[in-house]
């Protein structure tokens, strides 16, 4: 099953991929920005500050997606004793952390004119802050521990604790009274966001996903080169 996970074979693909993803990202991001900042309408209630949402919501989605991926990868790495999964998880984490911080900062910037406060200790915002701490722990563990086996164990434990927080983030707005509004986009029922505002949201999400992929590939390639330099044939 994992015979394709030979580092030099992976490297052949991953070293070329950024060349194609970079221009794609630039195009999608430019369209997204024009759509979000110029073409999309202002909101009936919050007027232009709605535009912060086109950064805030995609960033939040991506960071949750990346943390879930990291957890699945770490757990699979542990179950199947495959080191490559851990390396992929490690390379994904930095962009997850960056988007987590972006989501918190843009939320704060939006909160001041809308709610009247920069920060509130409500369930959604607090659980999002806890996610930052889990990302930091995950990344620090890679820095602190020299022994690979030890790193794999510790990061797996961090993700298994952290993943409990992800559904809490998602459903905090439904389970408890929060200052943060409930989700506007529902897959099963009708969304409470107008289609003209949904379009930039989707394009920006695609742009952020491409950006994460780009950063991931750069990080991952570095890891692969490190392994190559050690003269190891396999991970």
């Amino acid at each position, binding site marked *: 099953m994992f015979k394709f996970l030979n580092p030099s074979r992976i490297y052949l693909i991953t070293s070329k991929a950024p060349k194609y993803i970079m221009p794609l990202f630039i195009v999608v991001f430019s369209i997204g920005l024009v759509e979000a900042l110029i073409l999309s*309408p*202002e*909101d*009936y*209630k*919050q007027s232009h500050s*709605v535009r912060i*949402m086109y950064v805030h919501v995609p960033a939040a989605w991506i960071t949750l997606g990346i943390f879930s991926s990291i957890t699945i990868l770490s*757990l699979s790495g*542990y*179950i*199947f*004793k495959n080191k490559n999964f851990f390396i992929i998880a490690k390379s994904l984490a930095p962009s997850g952390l960056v988007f987590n911080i972006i989501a918190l900062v843009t939320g704060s910037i939006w909160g001041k*004119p*809308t*709610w*009247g*406060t920069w920060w*509130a*200790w*409500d*369930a959604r915002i607090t659980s999002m802050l806890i996610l930052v701490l889990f990302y930091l722990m995950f990344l620090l563990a890679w820095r602190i521990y020299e022994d690979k086996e030890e790193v794999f164990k510790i990061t797996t434990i961090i993700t*298994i*604790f952290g*993943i*409990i927080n992800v559904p*809490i983030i998602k459903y905090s707005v439904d389970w*408890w*009274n*929060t*200052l943060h*509004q*409930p*989700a*506007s986009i529902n897959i099963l029922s009708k969304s*409470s*966001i*107008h289609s*003209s*505002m949904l379009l930039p949201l989707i394009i920006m999400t695609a742009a952020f996903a491409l950006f994460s992929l780009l950063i991931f590939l750069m990080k991952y390639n570095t890891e692969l080169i490190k392994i190559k330099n050690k003269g190891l044939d396999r991970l």
Partner: protein
Amino acid sequence: MYGRKVKFRFFFVILVLLTLILSVFLVLKALEENVVFFKSPSDVKFLGELKNKKIRIGGMVKQDSIEMSANELNFIITDFKNEINVSYSGVVPNLFSEGKGVVAEGYLKDRSFFQASKILAKHDENYMPPEVKAALEEN
């Protein structure tokens, strides 16, 4: 297929996850009182005893209830079952208006009167351009 060890590790992970989910669920259930950001007027009605502690009350600003005087603002927070009179002096957020969500922070004087020290506007999940809103209101 996979070896015995792989299977054991898989079930071990599932077991750890279930244990963690259950314990976190129980902890959050026990702490619910503190996890909620605000209480509704109905919660206040059924509150055991009134403590002189800072709390938050949230709900809708009742239609035609805002009264402004020189240095005081009075309005009613409702959850469409129960209501609370709120008194406040200070600046309010731009989005504070009748029929919209609000969270007031302050002290309960009695079960129907609240002295607020801070007002936050709560935004709902509806996003639409002004034209669409106008069209909706016409219908």
